[in-house]
Structures are given as C-alpha cells and as structure tokens.
C-alpha cells in the first residue's frame, strides 16, 4: 500500500499549514488594524512579538508564573510597548505633520527606532543567544489522527485562539460602539473629532489591541517553537507585509484568508517543491497581487478605502 503514507503525510502537511496560517493570522491582525485605522505601518510589530515571547520566558523560567498569567502579563506588556510608541511618537506625527506622505515616512522611521530599542532590550537581557520558556509551563502532547498524522495540544490552542481573535476583532470593529469610533477615525479623524469621538483615546486603545495581539501570537509561538531569537520577529514582519497586501489593507477577513493562503503556499513549497525558494513565495505574491489587483484579493469590507 504505497499510497497510504503519502496520504498521511499530505494530511499532516495540511495540518501544519493550518497551524502556521493561524500564527500568521494572529501576527497580521494587529498590523492590519493599525495600518487600516491609523495609517501606521508599525515596523516595530515584529519586535513587540518577540518581546512578548521574551517576557514569558523571563516570567516563567524561575517558576514565578504559570502559563495563563504569564500569557496575560506578556500581552499587556506587548500592548504597553506599542502604546508607548503611539504616545511618544505616532501621536505627535499624526497631529503635527500636515503632509500625509511626510507623516507616513516619519512613522516608519520612528517605528524602526522603536524596533531597535526593543530588540536591544531583549538581546541584552538574553545574552543575544537563543531563549525559550521552559517546557514545564505547557506540557506539549501529540494526538494521533489517522495514519502517521497528528496534532499537538499547543497547535490546537493556536488554531482556536486565532479563529476566536479574528472573529472577535471583526465583530468588535463592525458592531461595537468603540469599533464604530475606530472606523470613524479611520475615515476622517478631523470630523470624527468634531463629532465628539475622543480621537487620541481611540488611537491609544487601537494600538494597545494591536500590540496585545502581537503579544498573544508571540507567546503562543514561543511555546510552540521552544526556542527563538530576536531575528525571528523580522521574518514574520516580512511575511505579514505579504498578508496585508494580498488580503487588502484594513480588512480582517482578507488578512485571515491571505494568512492561510500564504501558509499553504509556503508549506507546499517545503513539502513538495524547491525548499530553498521558500522565502521567495511571499515576495512573489506581493508583486503579483499588486500588479493584478492592487486593492488586494479579498478587499471588500475595509476600515477605510486604500
């Protein structure tokens, strides 16, 4: 029966792709939210993501906290780091720079500065070497499915959390009062300010949510990967660029679909294709999509037109 192991392997690779897509989703949601509503392409998002993994490592390695409290503290820490950038830099740039292009550039550079500082903190505190939370905080177990395929409990958790976060964010933006304020600010910050929306509060809370989502992704990935280093954040950031472009900036649903699409494409290349071209997939997708459909493949409901 030569077909059976191949089928089992294919199922396993499909599971792998879905788990990878879920991590990408969690990572990209926050980035998309910040860009879609506040026009901030936050290049520190990858650094914040690693920062959360580092916080969990720091909080759990002496056994001070267990998994869930460490996760919450790390998410708050990641959110706070992002809010710090908003309060120290983005806020001033948004209100003082008359020209949108100038503001965009300055926010990019300010967020690069933020990423450098956060990376430096993590790398100095970890001796610039690999780190990861101890395995005792989350006992990873594998459940066997048919054939050789299996899925671990942390992978199940990642998929469930990613789906919940995506649905939750989508509903929050669409339905809640706060979400309507976010959309209003995205559409026209000046008018919504005149209409009584507290723009700076909306900006701060949006950036907090964006950072906390990066933190959530960072902690779950740290537990799943076991070992990481500062450079990992940048790799996710570059992939997330592709997700935003393919999915359409500001679209939650687009980002989710694009994340799974890219995960499946990259997994397929690793499983069946020329593996060393894996990095090229995301960049190629960015170019192709921008050439064919600059508004993104799935862009329909957006916070704001691009």
């Amino acid at each position: 029966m030569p077909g059976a192991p191949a089928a089992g392997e294919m199922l396993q690779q499909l599971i792998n792709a879905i788990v990878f897509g879920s991590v990408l989703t969690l990572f990209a949601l926050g980035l998309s939210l910040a860009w879609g509503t506040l026009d901030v392409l936050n290049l520190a998002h990858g650094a914040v993501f690693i920062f959360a993994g580092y916080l969990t490592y720091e909080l759990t390695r002496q056994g001070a906290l267990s998994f869930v409290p460490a996760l919450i503290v790390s998410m708050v820490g990641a959110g706070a780091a992002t809010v710090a950038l908003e309060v120290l830099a983005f806020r001033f740039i948004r209100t003082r720079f008359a020209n949108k292009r100038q503001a965009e550039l300055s926010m990019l550079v300010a967020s690069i500065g933020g990423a450098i500082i956060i990376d430096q903190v993590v790398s100095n505190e970890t001796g610039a070497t690999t780190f990861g939370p101890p395995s005792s905080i989350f006992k990873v177990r594998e459940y066997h499915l048919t054939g050789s395929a299996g899925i671990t409990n942390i992978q199940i958790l990642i998929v469930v959390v990613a789906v919940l976060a995506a649905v939750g964010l989508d509903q929050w933006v669409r339905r809640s009062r706060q979400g309507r304020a976010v959309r209003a600010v995205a559409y026209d910050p000046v008018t919504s300010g005149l209409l009584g929306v507290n723009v700076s509060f909306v900006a701060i809370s949006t950036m907090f949510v964006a950072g906390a989502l990066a933190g959530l992704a960072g902690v779950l990935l740290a537990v799943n990967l076991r070992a990481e280093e500062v450079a990992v954040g940048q790799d996710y950031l570059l992939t997330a660029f592709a997700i935003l472009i393919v999915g359409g900036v500001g679209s939650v649903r687009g980002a989710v679909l694009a994340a799974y699409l890219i995960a499946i494409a990259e997994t397929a290349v690793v499983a069946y294709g020329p593996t060393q071209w894996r990095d090229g997939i995301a960049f190629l997708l960015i170019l192709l999509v921008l050439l064919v459909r600059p508004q993104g493949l799935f862009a329909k409901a957006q916070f704001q037109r691009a």
Partner: protein
Amino acid sequence: MQTIASISSWYANNETLIQEILIYALLAFSIQVALRSGIFSLAGVGFYAIGSYAAGLLVKEQAWPTALAVIAAVLLCALLGWALSVLLVRLRDLYLALATVAFDLMVGVVALNWSSLTGGPLGTVGIPISVTTLTIFITVLGAAAMLALMQRGTIGRTLVAVREDEQLARSLSVNVRRYRELAFVISSMLGALAGAYHALLFTDIQATDAGFELIVLALTMVVIGGFGSWTGALLGAILLTWIPIELTSIGQWWDAVYGAMMIVVATFIPGGLISLVTIAGRASRGRARPSLLRRGSAAAAPPASSSGA
C-alpha cells in the same frame, strides 16, 4: 602647507569611513530622488544588489575594464528600472513601498539560489580592487550636481507639481507618467552605481548584503537627513554611517541610544536634520527679519510646504 598636511593625514586616518559614506551617499541619493518626486520606491536597494553583481562579475570573470563594467551595470539597471516602473505604474505610497521592498528581497532570494552565476551562499569573492576613492568622490559630486539641477528650473518645479497634485499636473499637460519613469530610472542608476562601487572597492559580494537591513538603513538615512533635498540625503548618509561607529564605544546599549535618536528626529523634526541647518543658516543671516524665519522653517520641510494644500 600645514593645512594640506593635516587634511591629508586626516584623510588617511579616515579613508575607509569616507569610502563608506560616499557609497551610502549614492544609495541615499537613489532613494531621495524618488521620494522627492513623490515616488515611495525603495527599489534602489535591489538595484544596488544587481549593480554590485553585474560590475563585480564583469570585472572578475570577464576582465572588463572598470569604467565599461560600471557603465554596463548602470545601463542594465536603468533598463530594469524602467521596466519595473512600467510594471508598478498604478501603485502609490506605502503600496509602492512594499512592492519595491518585495522586489529588493526577491533579488536577494534569486542571488542566493542562482549559484552558478553569483556563487550562491558562498558569495562572489576576490574581485580585484578597481576603483579609487577619488573616482567615487567625483561620481558623488556629479550625482549631487545632477540632483541639484533637478531640484531647480522647469524639471524641479514639474516634479514638485507631479508629487503634490497629479491631477493638476496632468491638466497642465504634464506627462506625469514620463516624469515618474524618469525619476524611477535615475533612482535605479544611482542605486546601481552605489552597488557597483561597493563591489569594486570592497572586493566581495554576499547575497545577504542588500537585505531588509540595508533597505531600512537607506530609508532612515534619507528621512533623518531630510528627503526634500540632496543635501539632506548626504547629511543622512554621513551621520548614519558615522554615528553607529562612534556609538559602539558606549558599550552594549549603543543600539538603544541610536533607536531613541531616530524616534526623536523622526517625530520632532519633520524636514529632517537638514532643515535645522537651513533654519540656523537663515537665522544667522536674517536676524533683523524674523518674519522670514517662519516661512524659512516651513520651506525647510518641503512636502509640507510649497503647494500648501
């Protein structure tokens, strides 16, 4: 006599630093000329990679004369740059930026996997040193003069018009597309020059040389220095090459200080550091006319200025 001696000894002590700055200045010009024309393109870094491989391989493998190899590399990139500008003609702002970043990184992936040409992960090493600092210096002067001319006169005004209001420019029968292509091609050529000189001066090319770090560095140079003028790009190239080298002496937190400086400048000095120089210059010249000062400082932050709304 004394001064000449001290200048030449200062030069001898800092030759490598000066070489780095000159090459980065060309790269910064490449990004600046695009940004100033309203094109948020970072493709200069990709052409830096292509230019370095083209010139390096032509000199090393084909034994071409240096001048010919550099010209060939620059022309190749001009052609590729034009093709890329045609492909990306519909894109604006951050979308264009991300598309060009994807292009740059794709160049790196191709370089890494095209081992028969580039040496793949082993890189291209042992390129003969074939340019002098003086050649690069003259090139930078020439590029600066060209950019200065582009900032003035009809071309300069047209480019500003294209940047600030495409519709208006079109209605004045400006061929917007042609101007954008021109800026894109010049940007590609400057990037290629920087890469070619780097390969021919520092003798080795790695596929990872022109990665995301170089994109970030080039962008930062131009924004921190000020992208309204070539002088800003030059200032950015000088400071961002020199400061990290000096800062390493403060030990393991130097990077954090560097990051903090970036945030402060990006947040509080919209026109880049060059605008402070302009303000200072005007202040010392026109003390008696404070009303000029305000207009002066606004003009120093170019996009926020000129066409106003």
